[in-house]
């Protein structure tokens, strides 16, 4: 099963390497990994997407918790949560295709953020599955470049992951 794990870590050098190292050393999968500082400069927040059986996910969370720099973590998939990922996608947009692409971008509530005679660059935000759907909806031959941030996640409701 796919799991989204949210981790609060000390904002120390090497913290990211410790997490990445753990996954390679123990043979776990990382589908994506995003890191950035939070409102508290001493902490960074990491969102990690991985796949595995219940036993493996249990070990992953335990091993992550064992890292000295990890302050707190939560498996968002265990409860209601929101997931967002941003994609920048550059598409070949010649005269005949321009209208159709524009319509598709509107349907997906994306934005065209750069335009040339022959291309559009589209910004699209949503759950990873929505981004996948957009990529599939576009004719493969029109895609010049795809850049995705990997998902960030947050739990639903008033409670937050904090100290």
């Amino acid at each position: 099963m796919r799991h989204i794990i949210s981790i609060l870590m000390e904002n120390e050098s090497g913290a990211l390497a410790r997490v990445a190292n753990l996954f390679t050393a123990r043979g776990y999968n990382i589908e994506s990994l995003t890191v950035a500082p939070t409102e508290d400069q001493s902490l960074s927040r990491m969102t990690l997407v991985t796949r595995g059986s219940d036993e493996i996910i249990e070990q992953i969370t335990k091993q992550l918790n064992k890292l000295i720099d990890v302050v707190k973590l939560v498996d968002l998939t265990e409860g209601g949560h929101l997931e967002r990922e941003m994609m920048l996608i550059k598409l070949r947009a010649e005269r005949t295709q321009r209208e159709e692409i524009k319509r598709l971008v509107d349907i997906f509530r994306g934005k065209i953020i750069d335009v040339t005679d022959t291309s559009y660059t589209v910004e699209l935000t949503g759950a990873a599955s929505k981004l996948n759907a957009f990529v599939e909806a576009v004719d493969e031959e029109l895609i010049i470049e795809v850049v995705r941030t990997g998902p960030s996640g947050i739990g639903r409701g008033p409670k937050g992951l904090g100290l």
Partner: protein
Amino acid sequence: MELSGGEIIVQCLKDEGVEHVFGYPGGAVLHIYDAIFKQKDVKHILVRHEQAAGHAADGYARATGKPGVMLVTSGPGATNAVTGIATAFMDSIPMVVLTGQVPTPVIGSDAFQEVDTVGITRPCVKHNFLVKRLEDLAETIKKAFYIATTGRPGPVVIDIPKDITDPGIKIPYSYPSKVKMRSYNPVIKGHLGQIKKAVKIMMEAERPVFYTGGGVVLDDAAKPLTDLVDTLGFPITQTLMGLGAYPGSGKHFLGMLGMHGTYEANMAMHETDVLIAVGARFDDRITGHVKQFCPDATIIHIDIDPSSISKNVRVDIPIVGPVKQVLKDMLKVINEGEMNPKKQALKQWWEQIEKWRSMDCLKYDQTSDLIKPQQAIEVLHKVTKGDAYVTSDVGQHQMFAAQFYRFDKPRRWINSGGLGTMGFGLPAAMGVQMAFPKAEVAVVTGESSIQMCIQEMATCLQYELPIKIILLNNGCMGMVRQWQEFFYESRYSQSGMGVTPDFVKLTESYGHVGMRVEKTKDLEGAMKEAFSYKDRLVFLDVVVDPTENVYPMIAAGKGHHEMYLSPGSELV
């Protein structure tokens, strides 16, 4: 008090109560060595190879329970130390490792003797630090000792760039009395509800068995464990790392379990209905094939490390906490409760165990003229009255020592169980002997293993360490040869070790006493003579039967009930 970085390091060690540092100097740590030169409280032991510094600090920690400390230079100093660090990591040994680093401004420039020590050691430490500001040095050292010695212990590396230790830059010094880390809070007590649940299951057990490991030794929990086992009257088996916590001569002890465990211990594991695992980690050398492991058992697991629980084998009643505390609480629950173990069922269970025991699975030919390695260990036990500190290397001799020395006290059996590091024995013994100068310390080794750190005989001379090296010399890498005999149709690929130095002469050239014994009838006399040299290192080269194998044996990936027993037994 204003101190330089080098002086701060030495002062921190003093304030932490460190008496011995095992190390080797080099460019990046010269300032630190200068600070060591100017004081007398912290004693530095100069090894001959950084690997040995690691094992010596490790042996010191295993024997005393205090953290071992080592100091090495950058680059090759650090890489040589990695084997020592990884060995300690696999067996959860508390250790603080100080490594020199090139000066901060040149880090990352491929400077002379630069390696990314923090990167290289990351997978084999509990935690590591790179000190980037002199102001952080004392606090980092305090944190390192705290992390190394609390929770599940382990080695912590502190990488210190040379400019941080510059004698020209001094800052006010004070050693933090306490350290608090929001991201690191080890459990200090097991959950009482879980403990009560476990006790209830134990009282209903008909075929229970304790399976205990290194965690009992590390947490100094031998006393409550022994009390608990004897109160309940349950059988107990111990892992290679757990030996000595419950006395080897104790009446409930079944011997070691696992790949080279006894028939009765492994059969009891296979047939048990309630398994009580304490400070053990269900390693593959213990479980064999996990699908066939304890097929009928409800499993209770006590461990300080939550990630040990249900890692390899699914556990029914997990209890996360320090084993000593949990065992004490368990005893209390039992003593204050109304429930008692099932007497009749236990009687039948013991009758079954006695039947297995009567197989006498450790028997060996005692009539041979050639010295049997098992016999050498039994004679060692006799001559040292079973009270020596015994370190070992890795291979057949290690298994024979584990099977035949019957350790009655914890922290007496010192070996590399997890990583299986050849070359561990002699330097580990140096650490033990440094800690206990008057104690009898024996290294049980093989002619292959001993050569991996044999240079340390010079260290032993320098510090007058009267270690006794008992070499079981079979002229080959015995355990490799055994596997080749069993599983590779006796194709002995590269496992011969016929070309060795004359160990007697070699020992003498290092300034010690060398002896050699070849016949069974001379064995005991030679052993006694070796131990009669109270103040000298003696190297006793015992020529043993090269064809001897370690039995019983469970082949890798087999179940506990599928054992090879010694030739001549009924169940080959």
